[in-house]
């Protein structure tokens, strides 16, 4: 639709403002609630995150005071696996509608396309943040019980994991936000490319391929550079609690890099959604 057209549309509308967005939000929430798959995917994401976290906590040992392990990060390793399920969930919220043609019904009911994208983003991010909170808290709790048995003791310099500890709290909150941003990334990519398989391929490629490329490159400066711009390695810097000065990127800066990826994906998706024929 041309600029001229949308300007006139806006002038004649009977107030497609906040009230319109609330209705779009309630519609998207009803959809997510009644499709069945979303609930199971959230459960799977939580189970994988906690399960992998427990497995890692069991496997890693700290034999002496100088082992240099990051206990907090170990506890939340499961996020690297759970994020894949979160990405799939977010992609399906959009691509599931393109696959069936229901997107046309959606855009007929809510012609303001950015409101549709905004409502989907709000709903799926909220659900992921809730599931992420459960997953991260459960992971920490499990690791708090497992790790001392593996040598992560006060004697070796490890206090029991606790959210009262500043860096641990930051890592936990950051991990939850990280999952929320992954959901946004999946949603943006899916809106741009529409087809589920392609969208999932792109998101998982972005997340897991960058680190692999980083390992193939020999030049350490390039390795650092890649870790600073890759959405997963940069974003998960928010989990680091030891040797912060030695990290390629700081915790919040790293999460900021992921936020930039997510924003870019949503912007491109939103632009294409507005411009293209449905």
């Amino acid at each position, binding site marked *: 639709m041309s600029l001229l057209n949308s300007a006139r549309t*806006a002038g004649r509308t009977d107030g497609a403002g906040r009230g319109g967005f609330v209705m779009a939000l309630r519609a998207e929430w*009803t959809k997510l609630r009644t499709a069945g798959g979303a609930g199971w995917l959230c459960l799977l994401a939580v189970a994988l995150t906690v399960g992998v976290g427990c497995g890692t906590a069991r496997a890693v040992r700290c034999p002496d005071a100088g082992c240099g392990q990051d206990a907090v990060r170990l506890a939340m390793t499961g996020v690297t696996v759970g994020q894949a399920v979160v990405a799939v969930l977010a992609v399906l919220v959009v691509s599931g509608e393109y696959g069936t043609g229901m997107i046309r019904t959606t855009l007929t009911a809510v012609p303001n396309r950015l409101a549709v994208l905004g409502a989907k983003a709000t709903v799926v991010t909220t659900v992921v943040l809730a599931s992420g909170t459960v997953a991260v808290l459960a992971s920490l709790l499990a690791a708090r019980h497992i790790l001392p048995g593996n040598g992560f003791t006060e004697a070796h310099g490890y206090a029991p994991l606790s959210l009262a500890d500043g860096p641990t709290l930051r890592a936990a909150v950051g991990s939850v936000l990280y999952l929320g941003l992954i959901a946004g990334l999946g949603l943006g990519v899916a809106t741009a490319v529409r087809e589920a398989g392609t969208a999932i391929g792109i998101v998982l490629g972005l997340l897991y391929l960058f680190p692999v490329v980083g390992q193939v490159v020999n030049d350490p400066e390039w390795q650092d550079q890649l870790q600073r711009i890759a959405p997963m390695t940069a974003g998960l810097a928010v989990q680091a609690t030891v040797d912060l000065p030695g990290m390629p990127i700081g915790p919040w800066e790293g999460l900021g890099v992921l936020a930039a990826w997510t924003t870019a994906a949503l912007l491109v998706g939103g632009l294409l959604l507005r411009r293209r024929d449905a």
Partner: protein
Amino acid sequence: MSEESADDGGYATRATIEVIGLRKRFGSQVALDGMTFAVRPGRVTGFVGPNGAGKSTTMRVILGLDAAEEGEALVGGVPYRGLRRPLRHLGALLDASALQPGRTARNHLLWLARSQGLPAGRVDEVVELAGLGPAARRKAGGFSLGMRQRLGIAAALLGDPPVVMLDEPFNGLDPDGIVWMRGVLATLARQGRAVLVSSHLMGELEGTADHLVVIGRGRVVADTGVAELLAAASGGRVVLRTSASAQAARVLRDAGAAVVATGPDTLGVTGLPDERIVALLARDGVPFSQVSAHRATLEEAYMELTRDAVEYRGVPAGEVTR
């Protein structure tokens, strides 16, 4: 039923679609070439044309799903995308299969109701209206095409809209379903709504549509009442069955009619009304067994109109499938 339709006491003022000079291309293919017509309240307007003529594209432009390069489409005087709760202004059924199979019919209607700020009670009303009954609690993925069409009608009527637009609603319906759909269309028009129904088969609209917009190659070929169209296609021809065809032809030609033999003892007569023909033959004592006005079918009238506009030559229009 809704507040918005109550405040003007009826549908009439908002029950219109105006399509004004739409142009659109897909690549090098011209889809819409100055499409212009209007849909009025209180009648069923048939939107007819061969496949590829631009029916679905026009409907998508009306709904703001596709953008036209030129021209505009207005629903009750407003572009669709400017409507805040659009399903209260226009109810559409484009593709009955376009729903997520894992959701129950009722929940499908529920999210649509939420998107318009309509109460859940309205969902139960349209479930009844469309005759979905207990099936509404089943997953829509397992529905037959006929049940999907009913669900689509329920969705279209959710907002009690003054305008209803259905794309090929007869497709895939069994005879019972066709009768039901015809009843629905007639009822909606009788309630004062504007009803636009597309079809590539004119026969489906016989006895259903009051008005026809016939299109071909992205433009309107004819915009006319069904009665006028049939009269024009019939051309005032009278069929005469007589054993004395030579004598009858002479008498009628003398009275100024044009007469052609259409069989061993049948004549086609134009230029005289049937009553006058009977009077002339009786006067001269010419025997005859039948005088009847030739009545063209809607299908014949339509073929006549679209002969030049059929997209794919060599394929009879009726046999082209999507």
